[in-house]
């Protein structure tokens, strides 16, 4: 049953929705006209409202989660403590709301990641110029963020599907927003592939539903049949139908997170979409996909986990994912090598990164609970770091293409002489993607390798290690362009303050998380309580 007290538990989602409507509404009610000056004014107003709103929602979600400060039980009651207590009443809780939406630690951390990513994206967009009604652009980002939050918490098939669509549809529109040939192509391609993957996923879900319905044969109430935990209960003895359903769901989500061989759409979409949106799609939407995959597989199909130990007992979803990871690492990294467009290069790099993230899921194959928990921590840590890094990298690229008008690798030439701070920030993001210490990207990779090794997938870890060496080659090409090549002109390259601050936040976080991973690992390790279901 949905109760009134459940409202604080979905407060961030509600606030996101309200903010989106507010952004839309404020623009509608204040139609200032469509001259260039007026449009710029409208862009500013919508963008600032979005950024400020997202910042506030992030703070509220942070307070609600209680990760920074938890109100002690014996605190005196006054106006502020009452608000705080009411907020934190919606903090990490065990029971999913009407069996469909869990507000556990996984959801909390995922929410913070997505809202944070949306906040940084909105900073990146402060100076871009949507060509028609600006408010739509920002509201779409908010709707999509809300969808991601729902995706992270969904524990029921219908909810999952709705959340995935809620996330994707605004992103299709955003990808094609600029209306140029490339951008439209990106939007259409993204939509077609997205619809395909939704169909696959839906088919898989329908099989799971049918399986549950026939197993329970009428002894069920409400949404029992579609709840992940119910499916897990029924799947104890293993059934080919359920395996089929699982494979289809993995394929469906695989499209969303762009793992090989379901990656075909992503380079074109990443290249064609407006750069801040590329940052958002490649970081937040991918992270959301992985969190969904994690929850789906570990909650609904724990008995089909199998093992990724080479030669002995391959089977189950961990070995399937290990295979996908292998393909993703090799194809992603090799395909990035010859790219001459920086955006496309980073797109292939994001595909390759998905391979490392899959390793974190493969760690679920470890027999010991302790090692699985480590795997979960490694996965979430990697996702958080990856989100920050990718937003930083694409953000820096956005600043360059805004000033230069192109995003080829050669457009980065001599950036160090034209804008040293931007070049340094960009370089740090790129090096973090490459996994160079002491940046967070290094520890994330190392941790993933550790848990992967322990789960028995050492063969995959060794291959992954060598692909990082390959990846270094193309990451260094970006550095080479920025620091070694001669610039086309010597005049300084202006970078908008919004973008610079977004990248600076990301880079500061990368340094801090890299030097002191325990700052967040303590919080992340709470997710294990969920995963242990």
């Amino acid at each position, binding site marked *: 049953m949905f109760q009134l007290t459940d409202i604080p538990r979905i407060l961030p989602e509600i606030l996101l929705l309200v903010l989106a409507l507010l952004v839309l509404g404020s623009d509608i009610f204040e139609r200032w006209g469509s001259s260039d000056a007026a449009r710029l004014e409208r862009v500013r107003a919508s963008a600032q409202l979005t950024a400020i709103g997202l910042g506030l929602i992030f703070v509220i979600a942070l307070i609600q989660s209680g990760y920074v400060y938890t109100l002690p039980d014996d605190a005196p009651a006054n106006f502020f403590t009452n608000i705080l207590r009411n907020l934190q009443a919606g903090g990490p809780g065990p029971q999913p709301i009407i069996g469909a939406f869990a507000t556990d630690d996984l959801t909390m951390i995922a929410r913070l990641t997505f809202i944070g990513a949306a906040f940084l994206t909105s900073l990146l967009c402060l100076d871009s110029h949507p060509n028609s009604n600006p408010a739509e652009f920002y509201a779409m980002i908010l709707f999509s963020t809300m969808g991601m939050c729902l995706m992270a918490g969904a524990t029921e098939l219908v909810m999952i599907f709705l959340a995935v669509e809620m996330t994707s549809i605004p992103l299709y529109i955003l990808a094609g927003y600029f209306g140029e040939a490339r951008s439209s192509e990106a939007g259409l391609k993204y939509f077609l592939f997205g619809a395909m993957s939704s169909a696959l996923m839906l088919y898989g879900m329908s099989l799971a539903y049918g399986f549950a319905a026939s197993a329970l044969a009428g002894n069920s109430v409400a949404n029992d049949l579609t709840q992940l935990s119910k499916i897990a209960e029924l799947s104890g003895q293993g059934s080919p139908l359920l395996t089929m359903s699982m494979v289809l769901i993995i394929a469906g989500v695989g499209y969303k997170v762009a793992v090989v061989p379901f990656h075909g759409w992503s380079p074109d979409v990443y290249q064609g979409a407006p750069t801040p949106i590329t940052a958002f799609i490649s970081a937040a939407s991918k992270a959301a996909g992985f969190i969904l995959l994690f929850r789906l597989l570990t909650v609904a199909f724990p008995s089909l986990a199998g093992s990724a130990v080479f030669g002995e007992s391959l089977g189950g979803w961990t070995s399937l994912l290990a295979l996908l990871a292998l393909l993703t690492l090799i194809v992603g990294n090799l395909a990035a090598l010859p790219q001459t467009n920086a955006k496309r290069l980073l797109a292939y790099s994001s595909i390759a990164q998905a391979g490392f993230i899959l390793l974190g899921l493969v760690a679920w194959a470890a027999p010991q609970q302790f090692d699985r928990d*480590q795997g979960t921590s490694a996965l979430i840590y990697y996702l958080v770091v990856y989100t920050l890094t990718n937003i930083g990298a694409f953000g820096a690229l956005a600043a360059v293409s805004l000033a230069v008008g192109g995003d080829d690798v050669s457009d980065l030439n001599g950036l*160090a*002489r034209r804008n*040293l701070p931007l070049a340094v920030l960009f370089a740090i993001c790129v*090096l973090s993607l490459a996994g*160079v*210490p*002491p940046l967070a990207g*290094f520890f994330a990779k*190392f*941790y993933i*390798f*550790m848990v992967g*090794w*322990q789960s028995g997938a*050492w063969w995959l*870890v*060794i291959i992954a*290690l*060598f692909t*990082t*060496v390959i990846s*270094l*080659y193309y990451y*260094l090409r970006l*550095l*080479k362009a920025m*620091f*070694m090549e001669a610039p086309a002109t010597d005049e300084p390259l202006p970078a908008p303050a919004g973008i610079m601050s977004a990248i600076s936040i990301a880079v500061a976080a990368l340094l801090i998380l890299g030097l002191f*991973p*325990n700052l967040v*690992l303590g919080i992340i*390790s709470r997710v294990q309580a969920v995963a242990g279901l």
Partner: protein
Amino acid sequence: MGLITLPTDIPWLSLIWLSLVVPSVLIGVIPNSQKQLMRIVGTGFAFLSLVLSLLLFLGYQPAAGGFQFVERLDWMPQLGITYLLGVDGISLAMLVLNGVVIFTGALMSWNIESRPKEYWVLLLLLTTGVYGVFVSLDLFLFFVFYELAVLPMYLLIGIWGSTRKEYGAMKLTMFLMAGSALAIIGMLAIYFGSGLRTFDMVVLARNVTMSGDLQRIFFPPLFLGFAVLAGMFPFHTWSPTGHVAAPTAVSMLHAGVLMKLGAYGCLRAAMWLMPVGAQYWLPTIAVLTILNVVYGATIAMAQRDAKYIIGYSSVSHMGLVMMALAAGTQIALMGAVLQMFAHGVMTALFFSVVGRMIYERTHTRQLPELGGLGKVMPFAAVMFILGGLSSMGMPGLAGFWAEFAIFIGVWEKYPLIAVIAAISIPITGAYILRAVYSVFFDEVKNPEFLTLPKLTWQEYTGAAILGAILIAVGLYPSVLTEIINTGVAPLARQLNDVIVAVGP
């Protein structure tokens, strides 16, 4: 040496690497126009780090031995990762070497006019990494510093280098990163294979619980991972191209210290933590190092570019170090560490003469084009000959004692290999003398050379310090050998005794 007693409540080892992080941040905020200030700050802090490492050297108590000045802080306790620092005799010798080379290297960098800010920041970060590796006792921390020492090299060579710099920089980085990947495989194998779930090297070395089979499988990745940086055959090809392409101070640091980092990693991580694996593989490695020693020297003989000669001579000399490691007896290990020190100082001297004093003035390093420079810059000639004699193993200079100890040690274990490797001694003499003759004593081939600008005080000071150390260690080697021996003795014991404890 135990000559002075240092207060124990000061985190000396953290200070030593922080003393280079601080200036790299400071230089980052100095305005671009203040080039002189950047140089002073950079050199000043480099000197500070040298002083700190000398203090530690004097404050170490050889009688007590073992690891001293230990610092321990929890970093990621749930994963067994600690911030654990400590030095023994081996790392102390390396610390002093690094201090000397970075200080003299900083002096040789005063002529960098293009983008000095980035140059100094990267140079100091690189050295931070080197110091960090020598002081860390936690394998994870060790690796973090190791990577920090390797990566700035890419930009340093690529931006400020010469001859085919981008190719050299990329080749070097790819080789070293492939080495790192191998090393990570070895690290993970130790972490899980030992069942101890810790990266604390002292704990891992004290209880070698990894099974003999696993050690034999995973010793090669870990050892080779670091050996790439030490320039071991057949993974040495990055090293001459890298050295030639790099700017002077970076060549000095690279050949002088960074290659030692590789050998140090082989010794400290691979051989110390997997003694059974080491026993199994070392004979094979010894055979490979013959190629290093003899082939490196022979190729050096055929070079016309003075920097290539030094580059291949480094391959040859580092081959001797690796050969001594492969012998694994106490005297061989002592010789290896002493050779690292002697070769570091000597190569730094070579590069400062060839790269800075000569190339910056004549803009050529080709032996046939040079000549008669002894008349123009007698000081450079004296220094080059001093380094050359040490390289040939002239008694009275540091190189002699090192090679002497190495050949004794290797003879004990593999007499045949020692004999074959000894062929390199006359070859070394030949290529050094040839270089000395054609650079300094041949007739002047280019009349413009007679009017070259005078040497600067930085060049005089830097080279004089390096030369003085070569002579001092040559005349009184026990200043180093005593301390080095306290460090290598437990390692040699580990290699020979643990076998009995664990079984083959």
